[in-house]
């Protein structure tokens, strides 16, 4: 997608909400656009992001043309979402070439509430303490973050590898079940097929 449209004053900017540079490097292998690291999750504060992937369309003037949307770069989840990556890519082509945005681009994204904001600060402190070698302090603040935003993947799931848990293990499936039971709350657009 990026390579196809790169001549049309279009660029993809990928930001990893992550501190695992080596893992991200593997995912970014062969990618020609910028891949940035955001170990402190500042992007989730600035754009009210609660899960990944979240895709934001930003126009040449710095205006958000289409806010946070849960779009995937592959069709791995198409069976569940009913949405193919080609559906999204067609919409991006129409935006880049004709300036046309889909109807869902006018969707309002709910702001983060106080607990969700506080959870991000606890997460950041936990990540800092962990890097500084204070495992107990880190655990305390990862716990506090998870209590405040129990269904926020950038808070709860992102902490799993930092706490020595598998992000695809039992804890994750418990989170996923609770998330789905709660109606999959996401600060952003869940695109129609």
């Amino acid at each position, binding site marked *: 997608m990026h390579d196809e449209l790169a001549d049309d004053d279009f660029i993809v*900017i990928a930001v990893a909400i992550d501190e695992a540079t080596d893992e991200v490097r593997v995912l*970014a292998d062969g990618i020609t656009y*910028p891949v940035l690291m955001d170990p402190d999750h500042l992007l989730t504060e*600035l*754009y009210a992001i609660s899960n990944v992937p979240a895709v934001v369309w930003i126009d040449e003037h710095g*205006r*958000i*043309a289409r806010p946070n949307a849960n779009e995937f770069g592959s069709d791995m989840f198409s069976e569940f979402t009913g949405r193919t990556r080609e559906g999204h890519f067609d919409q991006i082509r129409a935006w880049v070439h004709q300036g046309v945005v889909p109807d869902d681009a006018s969707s309002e994204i709910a702001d983060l509430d106080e607990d969700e904001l506080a959870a991000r600060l606890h997460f950041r402190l936990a990540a*800092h303490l962990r890097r500084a070698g204070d495992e107990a302090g880190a655990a305390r603040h990862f716990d506090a973050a998870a209590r405040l935003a129990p269904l926020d993947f950038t808070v709860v799931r992102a902490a799993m590898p930092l706490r020595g848990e598998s992000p695809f293990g039992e804890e994750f499936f418990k989170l996923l079940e609770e998330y789905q039971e709660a109606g999959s709350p996401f600060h952003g657009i869940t695109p129609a097929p």
Partner: protein
Amino acid sequence: MTTITVLGDEVASATGEWAEGRPLVEPDALSAAIGWTLKPEGLCRDDMCVPVRDRSAMQVGDKVDLAVAADALDRPTLVDPDTSAVVLGQPNATRQAALRDRQAPDFTFADLDGVDRSLSDYAGKKRLLVAFSSW
């Protein structure tokens, strides 16, 4: 006196003390800690000043309460005396400008080669911002 770790736009250390759970720093340390200086006209950075409504709440003796200063700057704040840390979130107004007014907040992060890159480096292009992760 003790060292207070400030997780703001950068990680900084400020010399100060904890008084009944309040993080107090020397006025001179405020600038290094949060990038703003307390002046008669308010909290100032470069040629911009934010008025301080209740200066008596911010100043304790000859020191400044970091959390009150952060609040005056409209930043969510976490104060943790146990680890002697203060965490400053991104300004609420920036996020709200994104959600309500569709102004894309700028950011600067290092790329995989350690080179800082900003959203605004690519102004003039249509930009597809993709937040992703390995988890």
